[in-house]
């Protein structure tokens, strides 16, 4: 399935909005007893961003082809 430009723009906009985690702004509670929740969210965000880029690349980017220079 190929994503339209609008779908790519929507995915990236949602990703950008999720970056601004104002809901953890003043929260210093710890996850796993050592990582502050505001930081833990951004670690999770890295995985989320990677997954979103994987979707975008697989549906809009060029794929390896036999014609590639070795």
């Amino acid at each position: 399935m190929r994503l339209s430009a609008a779908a790519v723009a929507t995915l990236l906009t949602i990703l950008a909005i999720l970056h601004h985690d104002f809901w953890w702004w003043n929260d210093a509670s710890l996850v796993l007893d050592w990582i502050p929740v505001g930081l833990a969210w951004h670690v999770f965000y890295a995985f989320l961003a990677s997954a979103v880029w994987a979707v975008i690349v697989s549906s809009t980017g060029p794929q390896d082809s036999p014609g590639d220079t070795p």
Partner: protein
Amino acid sequence: MTPLIVIGGYLGLLLGVGLLGHRLFRGTSTDYFLASRSIGPFMLLMSLFGTTMTAFALVGSTGKAYVLGIGVFGLMASWAAIVHPAMFHFVGRRVWDLGHRLGHVTQVQLFRDRFESPLLGALLFPILVGLVIPYLLIGVLGAGATVAAVTKGAVSPALTSAVVSAVVLVYVSFGGIRAATFANTFQTLVFLAVGVLTFFTIADALGGAEAATARTALLRPELLSRGDLITQPHFLSYALVGMSVGMFPHLFQHWLTARSSSAFNLSIVWHPLLVMLVWLPCVMMGVWAAGLHASGELALPPAKANAVLGIMVAHFTGPWMSGVLTAGILAAIMSSLDSQFLALGTMFTEDIAARIDENLSETKKIWMARGFIAAIVIGTWLLSLFTTRGIFDLGVWCFSGFTGLTPLVIAALYWRRATRIGAIACVLTTAVAWTTLFIASLQPGAAEHGEFLVGGVMPVVWIFGASSLALVVGSLLSTPPSDATLARYFPGPEEAA
């Protein structure tokens, strides 16, 4: 002495890997500057990531987290998870395609041709060089500060900077970008592994990650959230800082080395995870160091924040481990220095020397690049002796200048109506806005929330806004580019194939 033996051994090994790239050198300027456009997905990932992560990411982030807390991660690292891949995907691929079809080697060549303006090229060259030099300084200063801290001042920053610069100079001079790519791949693997090792070693020495964080939670709880340390507009405005990668000359050159457009895929998908892997340990160690300082276990004033990582390594690890960890930090620093030195040499040769003498031989081109790289290395080292600014802040100013120029590359690739007048206006506006704000930041008491903010946001917002506006207005008020140029830069699907 032991750490120095380990570091010396690492530098020797690195020279060997770099010179291995020289053995594969094909003797042409295309191979020297672009590795004959033959780099595959894995080495492209390693070189793009290794080049992007510099002293800023390791030494700078630890020092900044020591002062501003965990919010530092969101300022740079997680914006990099969206903005950097976007630049690789939307700008890098298209630059690669144009370079492949039209034979560009440098940014100046692309912009001069796309905007039909030699004047634009003449304006851009000194500005790009002027922005790369502070970026080089970050690396040189970071190396000096780290080794000085680890050896407790026995090795001066000036000596470390000289040795590190000399090692990079040797392998880049001999093997060009192929040697830099080999060395980057090796160094990126080293600093990723060492970063994780450092984190666990120091956490263990502090009684575990839980105990280390608990100490900070007790004595410096404000560092475990953003609270009043970082405001929301301040946090948001860092999105633009990351856009600078779209105009880094050294990344531009690495993009052109890709063997195919699909080689970018791996870099785009893995970049967010690799950035997180480097920044998370550094930010946590900075926060832990602040707790140690507050408890009186670590003497380190905030003005010496550049040294936090080195001091933590020296304080909490044995001599051998200390040497290994320091070598890893130097790996991250040198994996950027090599590409930056080479990009400057390439720009000088292609944009200045080859313009003056169009019949320059391949051999002369390579030797001219080597000579210019050597001059830049010496100049940077001399500058590093007199620079006192924090690495993080110096880096952000450098990135802000590149971000001001980013509208230029986006318009060149995506906006047919962008013209030479718009492009020149964009460059001049960036130069004026950046210089004005930088001078203002030097005034005593200009910093708030640990940084110089204008209207509550980073200066980059105003620089980017002004340069974008200048580009749009200048373009709409001037004559569009010729049909021939537009046909080359915006071909239909059939011509592009």
